[in-house]
């Protein structure tokens, strides 16, 4: 039996259970939230403090092949930002591409307890799991990339939705993945030849399928499999002026596949695909148009991909975009195409206030958050590390909560950009409740993680306590206090144990790795598996048996069973 704990007397924000800053106790036993504990329970005194569920990051590049290539690429990123080992913690380095131990500790110090790695080439999934297993404390999962997968494209081209679903289920199992990730659908396959694909109805060379068909097909597959999360989409045309139209087109292309109020598509780091204008010279914000669409359509969720000024590293599976960024910036460049599946690219980047384009980008992310009415459709991310390292979340939160904080930055950015943005005219300020939604309740809901993101009975006892009194501190005026409190939680509790106190890790642990065991009917799976067996050697340079990751490979797997409609 594990320790009993009372998180006492804090101001609790638990949006999933309708609790909005109420002063109450939270009871923990055996790593779960319970409704009462015995008299011997230890007390975490939280009077005058904010209590929230532990943060749930829906999209953060922390583990895997391209992340590690980025680490090797940039010794200069690590040189001055390091962590010395302690009795409890391992040493490591930052800054924008932290080593795995450092990443886990830094998340935990900020009160985050669940982090999802959003882009894994299935062929290299084992690498991602090795790194996730070296990332302490947080619970995690990963999304296998499927939007440029040869087998997926062929099945969809031939109209074989059910076989495609079975194949995707097979991949989810083989890679121990959580959700269907799509990056630049069809575009990365074209990039395999050095070509670019810009429109949703362009044909992928040699595959006779379009990005629209890939997105729709995988959306149907996702629904058939009853996957907990929607398809998670990095749209075509990322990084191009005017690309907000592609974003809306992509959202709209699966509108008819929606049923009820449940989302059918999640568009990720929308800031990068929220550009208006026709060139870099007249780049503008497409946020109003996108937010307008999202406000009218409940089948869409988004995450921001907010930038913060400073030095960071871009890394995505969008090989063609990364090449273009390299050409634009002149910075060093990694490209890594993956056979039959996808690609990747890494380019260091420095966002400058004085730079017109960067300043507009900064505005776009915030406009998206502020103009989208329903916080349950918005997730806070920086697409770590593309927009900024995740350690900038407190700063981003302060921008959402305080128009004064925004005004201070607006005063310093490129003035042409300031004129171009709508942001100066937006007064809205997020409440603590809304922040809790976009950083934990809403993200957990979007991922369908039933035991995360809330403090109801039965939830995992993952809790963040921040030394900030919502009754005394006005986040609008005193945004610095907000930043300070969120940077280092007073307590971070994971599975009912205090692992961080005032920014110091006091206990290390290993989190779970969630994966989804999507199952189709036996006949369908047999048929698809034998098709796969025939094709595998033709498509891949590894044996099929060696491609599959067994559950025992993961240190702490947590399987989520779903059974599909087929």
């Amino acid at each position, binding site marked *: 039996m594990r320790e009993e704990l009372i998180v006492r007397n804090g101001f609790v924000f638990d949006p999933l259970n309708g609790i909005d800053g109420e002063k109450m106790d939270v009871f923990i036993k055996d790593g779960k939230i319970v409704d009462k504990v015995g008299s011997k329970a230890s007390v975490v005194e939280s009077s005058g403090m904010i209590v929230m569920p532990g943060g749930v990051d829906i999209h953060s590049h922390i583990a895997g092949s391209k992340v590690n290539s980025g680490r090797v690429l940039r*010794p*200069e*990123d690590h*040189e001055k930002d390091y962590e010395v080992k302690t009795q409890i913690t391992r040493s490591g380095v930052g800054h924008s591409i932290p080593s795995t131990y450092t990443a886990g500790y830094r998340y935990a110090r900020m009160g985050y307890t669940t982090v999802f790695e959003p882009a894994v080439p299935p062929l290299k999934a084992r690498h991602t799991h090795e790194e996730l297993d070296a990332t302490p404390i947080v619970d995690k999962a990963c999304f296998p990339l499927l939007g440029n997968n040869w087998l997926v494209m062929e099945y969809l081209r031939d109209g074989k939705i059910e076989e495609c679903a079975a194949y995707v289920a097979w991949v989810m199992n083989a890679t121990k993945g959580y959700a269907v990730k799509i990056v630049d659908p069809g575009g990365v396959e074209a990039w395999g030849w050095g070509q670019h694909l810009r429109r949703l109805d362009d044909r992928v060379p040699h595959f006779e399928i379009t990005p629209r068909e890939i997105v729709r097909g995988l959306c149907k597959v996702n629904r058939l499999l009853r996957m907990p999360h929607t398809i998670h989409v990095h749209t075509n045309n990322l990084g191009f002026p005017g690309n907000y139209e592609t974003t809306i087109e992509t959202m709209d292309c699966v509108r008819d596949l929606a049923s009820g109020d449940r989302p059918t598509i999640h568009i990720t780091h929308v800031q990068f695909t929220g550009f208006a204008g026709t060139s870099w010279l007249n780049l503008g914000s497409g946020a109003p148009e996108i937010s307008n669409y999202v406000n009218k359509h409940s089948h869409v969720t988004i995450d921001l991909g907010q930038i913060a000024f400073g030095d960071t590293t871009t890394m995505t599976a969008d090989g063609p975009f990364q090449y273009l960024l390299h050409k634009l910036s002149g910075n060093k460049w990694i490209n890594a195409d993956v056979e039959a599946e996808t690609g990747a690219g890494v380019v260091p980047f420095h966002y400058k206030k004085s730079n017109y384009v960067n300043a507009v980008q900064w505005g776009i992310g915030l406009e998206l958050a502020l103009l989208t009415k329903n916080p349950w459709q918005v997730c806070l991310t920086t697409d770590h590390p593309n927009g900024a390292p995740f350690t900038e979340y407190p700063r981003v939160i302060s921008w959402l909560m305080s128009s004064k904080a925004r005004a201070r930055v607006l005063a310093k950015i490129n003035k042409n950009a300031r004129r171009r943005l709508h942001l100066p005219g937006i007064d809205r300020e997020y409440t603590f409740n809304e922040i809790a939604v976009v950083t934990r309740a809403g993200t957990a809901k979007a991922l369908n993680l039933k035991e995360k993101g809330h403090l109801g009975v039965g939830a995992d006892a993952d809790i963040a306590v921040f030394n900030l009194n919502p009754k005394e501190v006005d986040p609008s005026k005193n945004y610095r206090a907000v930043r300070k409190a969120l940077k280092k939680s007073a307590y971070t509790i994971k599975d009912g144990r205090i692992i961080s106190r005032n920014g110091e890790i006091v206990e290390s642990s290993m989190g779970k790795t969630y994966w989804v065991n999507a199952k189709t009917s036996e006949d369908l799976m047999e048929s698809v598996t034998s098709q796969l067996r025939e094709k595998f050697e033709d498509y891949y340079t590894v044996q099929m048996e060696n491609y599959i990751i067994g559950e025992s490979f993961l240190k702490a797997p947590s399987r989520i069973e779903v059974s599909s409609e087929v």
Partner: protein
Amino acid sequence: MKELVLKARRVPNVPAEALVVSPNFIAGKSVEEICAAEVWEGNRRIALREVFDVEGETAKVAEEQAVKVIGEAGKVRKLGYQMSSGLITVDGNAGMYLGEEMKGGTITVNGNAGSWVGTKMGGGTIEVKGNAGDFVGSSYRGSRLGMKNGLIVIHGNAGNEVGCWMRGGTIRVKGNSGQFPGMHMSDGTIFVEGDCGGRAGAQMTGGRVIVVGRLLTVLSSFSFEELRGSVKVGEDKVGGPFYLFTGDVCENGVGRLFVGVNRNPHLEWYKRFIETPGDGLCRLV
């Protein structure tokens, strides 16, 4: 100036690092505080006094502080780290990373210095009477921020990649240099009075590399421009004549490479590209 004298007591057999040997750190502290200051020897933290006998006095401010290091300090790294004024004299050899991130002041080494002299230097002067290792005036791995300002003079020979990713300032090598002086440099001047091990100015985008002595070949990514009678280095007018090349063309570079004519008879063939004045055409001479 007040002088503090550090006499090496023993030669460390593992890497030792003494960031504290810098006028900026020493000024304003007592001698006792200096003696107790932390020095790394391998994986052990020890007091400075275990590596050096300390005598003399400390000044109130760095610009009045002189530091003299005597004895075998060739294993002690990072002398002069981030110093911005004052004086360091090393009577003997100095270890690696001499004057790293230095912004001002003067360091004189009467013996040899290890590799990475003046890394990321932003100002001041470093003078090494003997030889220096590789990467004089360079950046850190993966970074493009090499030496930005200041003066480094190596009286003896320097190793490879002098001025790697250099952005400004001047490096003078009175002896010979190894390969790749000016690798990836974008600005500044590298002046090699002796011979060069080869590949001068490789991948430079700007700045000047001047080699008086022998240079076996000039890279094909350098384009011959003209003959120059002399070249100015600081206040000095260095007599040539010199072949002047621009490059590295593969980096769209506008760097200039000066190679002494007299010591390089094998480069005579470049003279065929000399323009005859008046007709604007390039022809064989």
